[in-house]
């Protein structure tokens, strides 16, 4: 069935990527930063799937699955860090890591 061109999907992916990047850059809470990272990864996935559909190449979907697995692992480790930080009563504010301030 016909629908929007691949270009539309990739455009959505691009906007989603931009929003995710903005979130990484302006939020101070580590957890929200990780959530924004997820957004960026998903944007990449969307682009992969769309172009796989366009070029009839299954590798795109395979790659998307791999990305999903890696994203999950990364979230796991990241949240482990957050828990460890919290247990030592350290700040979760990203801005508190400012020892390189010149």
């Amino acid at each position, binding site marked *: 069935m016909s629908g929007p061109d691949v270009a539309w999907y990739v455009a959505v992916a691009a906007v989603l990527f931009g929003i995710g*990047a903005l979130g*990484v*850059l*302006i939020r*101070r809470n580590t957890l929200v930063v990780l959530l924004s990272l997820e957004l960026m990864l998903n944007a990449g996935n969307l682009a992969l799937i769309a172009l796989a559909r366009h070029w009839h190449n299954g590798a795109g979907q395979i790659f998307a699955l791999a990305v999903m697995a890696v994203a999950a692992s990364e979230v796991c480790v990241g949240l482990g860090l957050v828990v460890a930080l919290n247990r030592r009563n350290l700040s979760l504010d*990203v*801005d508190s*890591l*400012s*020892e*390189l*301030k*010149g």
Partner: protein
Amino acid sequence: MTGGSWLCLLAPLGGTILITLLGTRIPRVAAGWIATTSVFVAFGGAIWACLGVHSRPSPPPPGFEPFGFHPMPRGEITTAWTWLQSGNFHAGLQLLVDPLSTVMMLIVSGVGGLIVLYSIGYMDGDDEERRYFAYISFFVFSMLLLVEGGNLLLLLVGWGLVGLSSYLLIGFWHERPSAVQAAKKAFVMNAVGDATMALAFFILIAHTHSLSFGSAFSVHLSSTAVNLVALGLLGGAVAKSAQIPLQTWLPDAMEGPTPVSALIHAATMVTAGVYLIARTHPIFEQARTIELIAAGTGALTLLVAGLIALVQVDIKRVIAYSTMSQIGYMFLGAGVGAYANGMFHLLTHAFFKALLFMAAGLAIHALAGEQDIRNMRGLGRLMPFTKWCFLAGALALVGIPPFSGFFSKDSIVASTINIGWYGWIFWACGIAGAFLTGLYTFRLWFLVFPGEPSPFVREHHHRHGRLEGSLTMLVPVGILAVLTTIGGWLQWSPRWHPFTDWLEPAARTLPAAVPTNTQEYYTSAATVLAGLAGIAIAWAIYSERTIKIPAAPFWRRTLECKFYVDELYDAVFYRPGAAIANGLRREFEEPVVLQAGPDLGETTLEAGGFVRRIQTGLLRTYVLFLAAGAAGVVLAFLIAK
């Protein structure tokens, strides 16, 4: 012959180096004897060279001269090696041995040797005697280089070195601020002359590609060029010989030790200007106007110096102004074209002026450094030898026969008669100068020597054993007194003139400057009468006190301030120069140049502080830079597409 010239040149240099290297290992008086020996060895070399020149065959008869003069008659150039080479221009380390240079070599090394011998006694006891003798040997070497140089470049080297030695020796007693300032003044004024000479040389090189005496004068230059060259050479001569307008350094140069005044500022260095004119006379003859300007300068100087000498109270300054005046006579002679007469007066002047200075030095030494003649009355009773030697020198200076000055001065004045209407003006100046010379010289003699010794003299006079001074001081004075008395008999222009003949190949007298015998006799009579009149008036004023000097405060003040020339130079040259320098320092050097360093530092610090704000230390900032970099890279790829 050439061996003699090299020996003459290098012996004093060897003396200097030896004294410098031996340093404090030798006793002070040994330095003096090394110096004296080296200068007398130079004298021996000069005699050898002179004999060699004498034995050369005489030049071809006058008909055979393609350019109007023979380029190198009776002379020989000996070259050690090529010193400077640039394009067509070569300058070798050349010495010229010809009649003119041998005359100067004999004067410099002979009179110089006597004066260095005298210094051994005069400078005895000074802490820095060795330095003195090193300097004075170096001076003799430089002067010999000047007169022996085979091209104008070596002459200029000698010229500069002589100025340097003069500076070193005037400022010898460097703890005295007045001596240091006098040395600086002498050097700066000489530098003005050096600059004009260098410019003249540049023009010469540009036109003739050579500075060698053999070839530089064979090319005919355009009228402007030759006038400029002559003017530049005249500037150098005027500076070195302390003629107007560059004369103010010579009286101040009396701050140096008396032997220095005798050697440098009477007998040799200040006469280098006359030598230069005689040596480069082909150029001056092509620029006749400039040559006559030289004569006019000489005439003016001899009058002005004579006037100023009338009011001086320092014994050495009187003699210094008299030197200035006598060199004026030499310039007059060389300027009108009577080169041999000028050189003859140079010779006799070396004798009697050195004698006068050295006799004055005996008096100063005996009075433990006193130089004011108002305190010195009656010295003759205690120092008869000095008195008679000084009298001989004074009579020679005034030009009374049979002393030497008579023969040389009169021939100069006589040679001005036939050159034109202005010759009579020069003649009148010469006669008036003779009158002034008699007046100031015998003012000096009558104030110092005859009569009862003053209280000051009685109190301060001390003897050297039974003699008036040490032997090393008395012997040269005696020798010079003899030379002063009989030396003039070498030449009496109307009758016999071996000196002029000797110099003929190198510096022929211009026909216009040769007087007839009648003119010669009249002139001699006039100068002698003028001189005797001056002596008589001095006797009347200062000895018998029958005439009072008129008060005339304005004239007295003018003369005492040396016609305000020093003040004029101060206002015209020094004040604006100092003001400009201070202004530059205030406006430019301090705010801009010196601030540049601190400003640069501050700017760097500010820039650093500004850039430092990027280092926020926040993680987000670094991610931002990551993202911006990624955007940039993608942009680059897009553009490449």
